[in-house]
């Protein structure tokens, strides 16, 4: 089952296209990182997936074939928006009660247990909690709904390092216990590998790269060799990024289907951060159709 699937998804706000022609299929059971510069359309894509906005063009379905925002989808998809919206004037206890009453599935005991463990006092006003605590509270409420998909919009942006660690630890532990899918967006690329096993790179409203992180890293390499041979070698591969020095050059290439390394050249692994930045620097570089086309991706999910 694909936990999110879009086809030609486009969204326009007045005269700006936040998303244009966005096509992807994310398999279930993954922790997905949605990455891209500010303004790339990450928030818009996530909002479309949780039913907060409707697309201008194209389709999107979640959890197989559910329409985002439909009652069936709302029941199984939990969302924490970018600025962690909560009712600031309510006490934590009241906030939990509101969440409980707005959902048919809600594990009150689990929520209370987690808040106790996080040492968030239940009679304090939500507005008086720290940023990290508010994020933890929002996350706890989402997790108590026992979702099949958890969507987080830049959850770490406003958190200090310790809060970030605790927040993601909570997410990871919940996934370990319940096995749901997660999609979180981030404009910070470093340390993504720690959390995510699937990556989507969005730039200017389009998908530049997507796939299992292991596959992506295995499918790229950094070639280095004499600068005179650079262009010749570059023709044999799909080059993502070229960097030339006086006597040597470095080419970041896609390697699938190409195993012959020219003599005198070295090949090295690429880090995820290097890879993502290289794609982001070159807007014309696109992985799609890349190592796998969308059809092949879907075909491989059937197994």
């Amino acid at each position: 089952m694909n936990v999110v699937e879009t086809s030609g998804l486009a969204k326009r706000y007045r005269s700006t296209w936040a998303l244009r022609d966005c096509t992807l299929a994310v398999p279930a059971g993954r922790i997905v990182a949605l990455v891209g510069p500010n303004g790339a359309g990450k928030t818009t894509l996530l909002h479309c997936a949780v039913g907060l906005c409707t697309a201008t063009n194209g389709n999107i379905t979640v959890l197989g074939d559910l329409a985002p925002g439909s009652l069936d989808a709302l029941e199984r998809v939990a969302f924490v928006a970018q600025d962690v919206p909560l009712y600031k004037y309510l006490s934590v206890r009241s906030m939990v009660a509101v969440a409980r009453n707005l959902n048919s599935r809600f594990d009150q005991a689990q929520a209370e247990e987690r808040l106790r463990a996080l040492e968030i006092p239940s009679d304090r006003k939500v507005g008086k909690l720290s940023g990290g605590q508010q994020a933890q509270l929002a996350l706890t409420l989402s997790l108590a709904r026992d979702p099949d998909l958890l969507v987080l919009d830049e959850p770490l942006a406003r958190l200090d390092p310790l809060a970030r660690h605790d927040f993601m630890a909570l997410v990871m532990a919940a996934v370990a216990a319940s096995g749901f899918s997660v999609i979180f967006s981030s404009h910070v690329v470093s340390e993504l590998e720690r959390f995510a096993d699937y990556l989507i790179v969005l730039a200017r409203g389009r998908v530049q790269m997507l796939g299992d992180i292991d596959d992506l890293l295995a499918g790229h390499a950094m070639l280095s060799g004499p600068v005179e041979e650079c262009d010749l070698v570059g023709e044999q591969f799909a080059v993502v990024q070229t960097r030339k020095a006086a006597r040597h050059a470095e080419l970041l290439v896609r390697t699938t289907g190409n195993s012959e390394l020219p003599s005198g050249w070295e090949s090295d692994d690429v880090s995820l951060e290097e890879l993502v930045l290289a794609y982001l620097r070159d807007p014309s570089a696109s992985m799609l159709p890349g190592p796998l086309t969308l059809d092949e991706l879907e075909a491989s999910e059937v197994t």
Partner: protein
Amino acid sequence: MATVAGSPVLARQRKHPVPWKAMARVTWLQRRSTLIGLLVVFVGCAVAIVVGQAGTHASYASFVANGCVQNRFHTPCGNFENWFANNTDPFSAMVIALHVLPVVIGVFVGAPLLSRELESGTFRFTWTQGIGRSRAVVTTLVLLAVFVTLTTCALGLLLNWFAHPFEIIGIESQWQSGLFDMTGPMLATWTLFGLALGTFVGSLIGRTVAAMAVTAAIVGGLLVASFVWLVHQLEAFGALTSTRLVPMGLGVGQLNLVGSENNGPVGSWLVRAWFTGPDGKRLSTAAAYNVIGRMFDEANKGKVDPSRWLSVHHYIYWVGYQPASRFWIFQVIAAAILTLLAALLALATVRLVRHRA
């Protein structure tokens, strides 16, 4: 691959009943302080009315005991009438206070309902919960509507009870624009309208302060318009005419009293009056007042009965009036118009919410 809690097919077939009790709890939690404030205002109004009414109790009891209801022209009745005429302030104050209620509810309950969510971003939380945005808005609106309708209807009925002695004596009338709008059903529907308008404006504008201001202006403006003009227009509709009444003046809204049958059917309401002259044409206002002046001069001299004087001079005094039995028809029409408006506004609100992307 990953296991999903419950197969997709089963989830789709599962019904989604509307959780009224749960939404009641949510509405209470979200608007606790506003609802408590409202309750305080309602109770305060009720207490003020009861206290005011108690103040009139003794005088009215005497009025009735002295047989003034059947015949108000014998001696002590005039004193009681004067007392009531001089003690309308508490009553008038409550009439004004109740007029403010629909505005208050529209501004403090209706306008912030959606605008606060939109402004603060909490709609991104609420509208992604399992209940769904449409049902959340509809249930909240219905619950609040029921609450304010019942309470304001009760207040309207209380005011009616307060007004009763004044109406019998003839100082106030339920047909009056001030009181017409403040009966139980009317106050309830005005409040419903205020709530619906406030909510609609709030969902349209998305900024709380602006929504509150616009709501106050529209609801307040319409109430004023109703007081000054709309009620008169409504009540004039399809008025009956008669030429058999003793002239009392040209103003709208003169009251026909119980016990003074010369002035037309008991409890009816004068909507307009005019004179026609010997040539059958309608007299201008100035000419009409001239005629009235001469008529009363002659009557005071003791010479001629006013009606005789008129017929001798070939003047006819026409009135348009509404019989008492029609009062409820106008109440129903007015209430229906307000309810219809409220319903349309509510539907528009839900539509706005549903399509906000």
